[in-house]
């Protein structure tokens, strides 16, 4: 228990200790909100879809959760490169506790990042339809954060250094973001694109958050929740499995 806590605490402390990094990582979501939100707003409205900011904000919130989560999982590579991982790995504690502590820490940080972007969205005009649904949205945020931190750890467990990192950004994380219905509605898509969006785990996370926040979704909250929980559990499993096999 205390092992999990101290690993969580380390992750959280290091995040809050560098406010410049927190602020820096808000630039991109803010830019997306403003440029896409106001840029596409009028086309979206003309197409009879309503207010684009309402649609877009949940997607951008989850974008920052996705990026922060993957990064905080992947920073395991730094721990290895700077030697700190050895200190942890040679300690008489089960590896699953180390993995879990790190994952919870990463997920906490990523969720917090989501909360900040949520507040930013409110400032630029986003409106929540039902305050009582906020806890449901928060649940989705945390699960998605867990899911992608585990993914980051799974990847970092297999990477020797930061070499493969750009590849993972371009061929995994960016597609996960763009193909998740973060920017466009999931209805009326070409068949191929429709299939791909349904294979993207983030799709269900965003759909769940969107329905909780604005009351309109595609699959319904129970389906979204079920899928997100299942995928999170699977990825936690894969992450732990690969983490067990790391040679420090």
């Amino acid at each position: 228990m205390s092992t999990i806590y101290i690993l969580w605490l380390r992750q959280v402390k290091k995040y809050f200790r560098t406010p410049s990094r927190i602020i820096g990582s808000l630039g991109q979501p803010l830019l997306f909100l403003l440029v896409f939100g106001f840029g596409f707003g009028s086309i979206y409205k003309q197409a009879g879809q309503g207010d684009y900011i309402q649609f877009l904000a949940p997607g951008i919130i989850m974008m920052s959760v996705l990026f922060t989560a993957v990064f905080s999982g992947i920073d395991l590579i730094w721990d290895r490169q700077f030697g700190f991982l050895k200190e942890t790995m040679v300690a008489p504690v089960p590896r699953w506790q180390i993995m879990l502590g790190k994952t919870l820490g990463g997920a906490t940080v990523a969720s917090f990042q989501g909360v900040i972007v949520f507040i930013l969205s409110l400032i630029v005009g986003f409106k929540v339809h039902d305050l009582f649904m906020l806890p449901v949205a928060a649940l989705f945020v945390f699960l998605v954060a867990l899911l992608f931190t585990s993914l980051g750890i799974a990847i970092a467990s297999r990477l020797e250094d930061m070499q493969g990192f750009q590849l993972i950004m371009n061929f995994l994380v960016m597609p996960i973001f763009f193909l998740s219905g973060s920017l466009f509605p999931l209805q009326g898509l070409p068949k191929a694109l429709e299939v791909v969006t349904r294979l993207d785990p983030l799709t269900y996370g965003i759909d769940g958050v969107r329905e909780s926040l604005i009351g309109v979704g595609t699959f319904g909250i129970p389906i979204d929740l079920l899928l997100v929980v299942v995928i999170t559990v699977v990825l936690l499993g894969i992450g732990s499995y690969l983490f067990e096999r790391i040679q420090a």
Partner: protein
Amino acid sequence: MVSNLTDTNIISVSGLTKKFKDFVAVDNISFTVKKGEIFAFLGPNGAGKSTTIQMLTTLLAPTKGKVMINGNDPTKNKDAVRKSFGIVFQDPSLDSDLTALENMQYHAVLYKVSKEIREKRIGELLRFVELWDRKNDMVKTFSGGMKRRLEVARGLLHHPAIMFLDEPTLGLDPQTRNHIWSYLQDISEKQKMTVFFTTHYMAEAEKVADRIAIIDHGKIVAMGSLAELEDKTKTNSLEEAFIAITGNTIREEQVNGTGRMRAMQRLWGRR
């Protein structure tokens, strides 16, 4: 010193071998270390010192041979072995974005040092290595020597029966070197803590070790107290004995690029 030690072998190694593909890094070595002893593994770069330490400390599986650490086999009872030693790795292993105190607390929790004694013990050790007034500073602001002292303090935190140190003083100035050894000798004597360290500094082995094993190309080529080694080779210093045994000396120029880079890193910090 050696005379008043008990006869318990806290480390015993027989026929230990490590192959990386076809390359034999550690070649059928056997030795024992007694409780409370300070044991040096002396050899040039690439001799197989770090590989041996990794096998003794559960980090690497041997290709062949048997190891017992404090009564446990590191390939089978990993956790029991891990509880019984502290380690200072060859390369830095602190979190430089945490303070000295936080690095110590992290270790204390991982090693289940009980809450009641945790703060007191950390305070003692940080004072012991003269870092108490810097306890709330980020480790990234520390010099190489300060980091090393912190790693030593951290390794001692859970009262290990054995302390492993892999080239603990590489790249440090003589004063810091002396400092670190005076802490370790003090604790070894008072608490019967065993110290197993590697080095390629002759003077260091000569000065602090009760017994020395000379390792070259993965093999132990000689072993004994300083007097025994000198006796055997009919020489008057470890340096001469070393030359008589290996036909070589260890000069700084022989230390390869990685070794020099490590020394630089330690001196200049790593970010």
